């Protein structure tokens, strides 16, 4: 037995050791292919090990990572970098560069690819990122999980998941998670369907909200916490989803109506921000100083429609621009709408405005029409310089496939965005460095312990949001609130503003997922 264990240990040691003789390698002109493409990047100084696989043909492979301090030498082609050594290397090379050298052995000879270099930014990335993992389906969500991932390593933690729910028929669609000012102390998300509601977490207190009240057309949909006040701006949307049986783009979701409302977390009062029946207003987002609210707005009169006449064939004519309204936190009054980026003028449609925390830039998702950019191949990220008012496509990061949802890190130096560039179906998270000159750098996929996880995982990443800290609530605690607590009802402070008759709640389309879900045979 002892002998067997010794042999086993020797075999293990031999297979794990880095092969020798590679230092005398001859240069190789061939292009190095690594997956994921982690070459020539700017990376955060606190990111998890960026494990990768050398895809070129090799009998043996060695990867050497050099910078200041002790080099890291690893056996390939699956390069798995030890966490402690990686952290040390990042710390030592903060503000500098790390050079990666790949050696391969072919026919008994060692060959060396041209080095690649990654710069280590001294700007850290926020410690956590929260996202939803869901199949890129359309109506059903039985295996949905809301996850928080620590970016300095690979730790993932469920915030909530559907398997806690007793029967599949009672499972909920969890969506639109949002945090206040990068803190996990206060956050919210919606749970649709049975026992649904909006979960509002405030420190160690939580409540489930039955949002729809008065003449609001739906429950709360797209949220944005005010950075400092007890307020959340929401859109309320009456949304429909249609499917195309032949088009490359398989589906479309569009609003029949939408407005913006302000919700007071403490008093549970709701009032309109904007509810112009000739415009669709959606995707609110607060400026970092909390004195401006950005949102997307579509003028539906431009193509001769009003809120009662929008039908599916028109959905490809709806185009949104980015607007803003000023806000006085003292009086809680809003100013009049201002145009920020008139995308519709260029026959484009801009949605999901995201101002950078330093207040200098605004990112939007821009496609050729509509608001459902996650399914639009034309969707790209656009950058508006808020000091000059100039807008440009963020070509440094855009791809031919849909590049849609995005978020800034709290120091404005990192952007995370969802993209379908890998396979056209399953969105993945990409990170990019955004330098002080307003230039983004080559994006890279969120590092995973096993880099092939990105190829194996049949789930899409949705709505990435940075936070500085970890959510303290467990899924079971959240389940208790969602499923077993009575909802708190909101009160509307105002009625219709522009004199037009609003849809009564019973006439409205309800919330987004309810509509989608009910269209599917159950």
């Amino acid at each position: 037995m002892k002998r067997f264990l010794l042999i086993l240990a020797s075999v293990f040691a031999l297979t794990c050791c880095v092969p020798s003789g590679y230092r005398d390698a001859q240069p190789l002109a061939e292009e190095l292919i690594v997956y994921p493409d982690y070459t020539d990047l700017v990376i955060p100084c606190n990111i998890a090990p960026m494990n990768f696989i050398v895809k070129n043909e090799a009998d043996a492979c060695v990867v050497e990572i050099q910078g200041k301090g002790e080099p890291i030498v690893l056996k390939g082609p699956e390069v798995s970098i030890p966490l402690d050594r990686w952290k040390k290397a990042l710390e030592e090379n903060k503000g500098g560069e790390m050079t990666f050298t790949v050696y391969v052995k072919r026919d008994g000879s060692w060959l060396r690819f041209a080095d690649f270099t990654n710069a280590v930014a001294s700007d850290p990335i926020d410690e956590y990122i929260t996202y939803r993992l869901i199949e890129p389906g359309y109506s059903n969500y039985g295996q949905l999980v809301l996850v928080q991932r620590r970016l300095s390593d690979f730790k993932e933690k469920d915030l909530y998941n559907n398997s806690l729910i007793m029967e599949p028929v009672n499972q909920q669609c969890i969506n639109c998670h949002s945090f206040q000012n990068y803190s996990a102390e206060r956050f919210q998300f919606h749970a649709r369907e049975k026992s649904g509601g909006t979960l509002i977490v405030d420190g160690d207190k939580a409540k489930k909200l039955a949002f729809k009240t008065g003449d609001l057309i739906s429950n709360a949909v797209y949220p944005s916490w005010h950075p400092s006040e007890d307020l959340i701006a929401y859109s309320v949307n009456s949304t429909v989803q249609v499917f195309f049986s032949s088009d490359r783009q398989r589906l479309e979701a569009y609003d029949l109506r939408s407005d913006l409302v302000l919700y007071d977390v403490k008093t549970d009062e709701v009032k309109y921000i904007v509810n112009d029946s000739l415009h669709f207003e959606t995707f609110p987002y607060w400026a970092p100083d909390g004195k401006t609210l950005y949102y997307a707005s579509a003028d539906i009169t431009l193509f001769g429609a009003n809120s009662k006449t929008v039908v599916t064939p028109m959905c490809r004519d709806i185009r949104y621009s980015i607007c803003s309204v000023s806000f006085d936190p003292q009086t809680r009054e809003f100013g009049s709408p201002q145009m920020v980026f008139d995308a519709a003028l260029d026959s484009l449609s801009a949605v999901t405005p995201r101002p950078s925390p330093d207040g200098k830039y605004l990112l939007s998702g821009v496609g050729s029409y509509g608001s459902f950019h996650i399914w639009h191949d034309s969707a790209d990220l656009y950058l508006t310089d808020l000091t000059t008012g100039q807008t440009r496509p963020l070509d440094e990061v855009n791809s031919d496939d849909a590049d849609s949802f995005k978020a800034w890190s709290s120091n404005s130096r990192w952007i995370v965005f969802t993209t379908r560039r890998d396979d056209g179906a399953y969105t993945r998270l990409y990170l990019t460095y955004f330098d002080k000159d307003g230039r983004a750098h080559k994006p890279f996929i969120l590092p995973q312990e096993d880099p092939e996880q990105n190829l194996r995982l049949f789930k899409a990443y949705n709505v990435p949001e940075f936070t500085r800290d970890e959510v303290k609530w467990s899924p079971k605690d959240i389940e208790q609130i969602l499923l077993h607590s009575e909802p708190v009802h909101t009160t509307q402070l105002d009625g219709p503003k522009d004199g037009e008759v609003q849809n009564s709640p019973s006439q409205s389309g309800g919330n987004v997922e309810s509509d989608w879900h009910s269209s599917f045979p159950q």
Partner: protein
Amino acid sequence: MKSWKSSLCFIAFCLAFLLIFKADLLNHFQQYNLFNFDGDFLWKFFEQPGGLLALAGAFLTQFCHYPLVGATLTAILLLSLHRLNVKVFSLNSLSELLGYIPSFFLLLFITRLDYSIYLQKTYGMLFSPILGFISSVGILALYRKFFEKCRWGFVFTALVIPVLYPLFGVYAIFGAVLIVLVCIKNKSNVWTNLAAAVLLGFAVPMLCANLDGIYIRINRHYAFFAGVPYMEFVDNFLCFVPLILTAVSLLGLPFLKNAGLKLTIALLTAALLLVGFGTNWDYNFHSVLKMERAVSVQDWDKVLKLARKAENPTRIQVLYRNLALYHKGQLTEKMFSYPDGAAELATPAYVPVSFICSSPVLYYCGMINTCERMSMEVSVSYCKSIHFYKYQAKVALITGEFELAQKYINVIAKNWFERKWVNRYRNFLNNPSEMDNDKEFAMLRPLMDFDGLDMDLGLTVEKSMFSHFSELNYTNEYLYEWQMAMLMIQKREYLFMQKFYDHYDRFPQGKITTGIAQTVALCAGISGDREMMATVASMLKDHTSILRNFSNLAKALNSSNDLQTPESVKWFKERFGETYWFYYYFINGIESN
């Protein structure tokens, strides 16, 4: 009977039963299964207690690709349970036969299954109950071998639950219950074992369900059913009954050790009768399974042969038949010469037709986006499986999304016995141009040739097809064929005639198919418009026999007082049963869910 003889008989019985009646079911289980050795896939099984059984079940289900192997494995496992029973309960030569009863009930669990298997929510459910009961009896065997005579034997009972509940779920607790039962029978260590089993049998599931950090994704309401494929029984309790019978029969075995001949025969007969009567013998169900195997290899002749035999088919069979006819180039020619209908699915569970057949039907009629959508939706709600990934892979191939196709093909390739399929479709990844020459894709491409956006209302598979094809502008003869077929099924005479007139000049008269000719004659006949009838007569001058038959039908219809009497239906069926006219007047309620 000698032990080996009874074993041989049992194996022969299981094999014959499973291979003759349930071979397609076994194969189907493999197609609706998924297994690979990736760490993240394996780990998922341990997110719930009892995951080892589902994992082992999923692994073994792969072998059902070949029903003979699957049936042999099943028979061996069932026999293993029997051998364990004999040993553990010390059954004598007569009561040894009673040891087969739990295995019979487990066999019934498999043979009882109906359409609900299309909506499996748990991997490995074919084998996991067998493995579960083997582990329960195995726990008892360990106790009897090492701890029965030990004063501290209850420590084993106490340890079994916390140690094995994560692996075997409630079967670990059942093992402890069996220990207590044997103790009661032997009147030794009863109270200590009982206390250990009750206390820990209650506490361990409760702690696993409610303590943070143990099982994040546990479905706590079913902690006492962990390891049992309980999700399958939520709306189909009947399927659960054989497992209850298995448990009850195992609990009874310690007390039947000295059963007499009469009791033994009575119990065995009862068990066999239950197997016989409890087994699902529904013809349509088995026909659907057979048709699906044929569709998967595009054996359209076999599909049609099966369609011919079904006297009162479900919509699934009708849909598969139409696919086969299209791919044989005979859709509107022969679709009404086969039995038609909309028989209810024989299942107490809620199983929509659309969830069963959407992937093959939508794919082979060219509605590839909808096929992809339905494959995704159903697999998200239930289990992801080889079956759905295959259609998703094929859709990705035909739409040119090769990275995506590769992803799906890779996951299928990790399952054993799928090499042939994988090689065929992986070849297209490397040589996309070969798809142009491939018969499967060649038949689909014209069906994807639409003019503009086509709205898919997506309510059910058949309604999707109706809305998709019915309003299309003329694009090519393949789409036109489907369009006319859909209009005929819906009995939309006006739109049918409009499309017929609009495109009559697009094909030579000789190509007007029998079904279309019959429909045209009927539409003209019921319009009562002499001019229209004359036009139609000239258009159908090569179909004089159809016109003559229609005249006969018209006369019979006019002279019939009540078409709905059984005699009338029979009379018309004998004379016009294989025509559109019979379908038009006598086949109703074709709505499928």
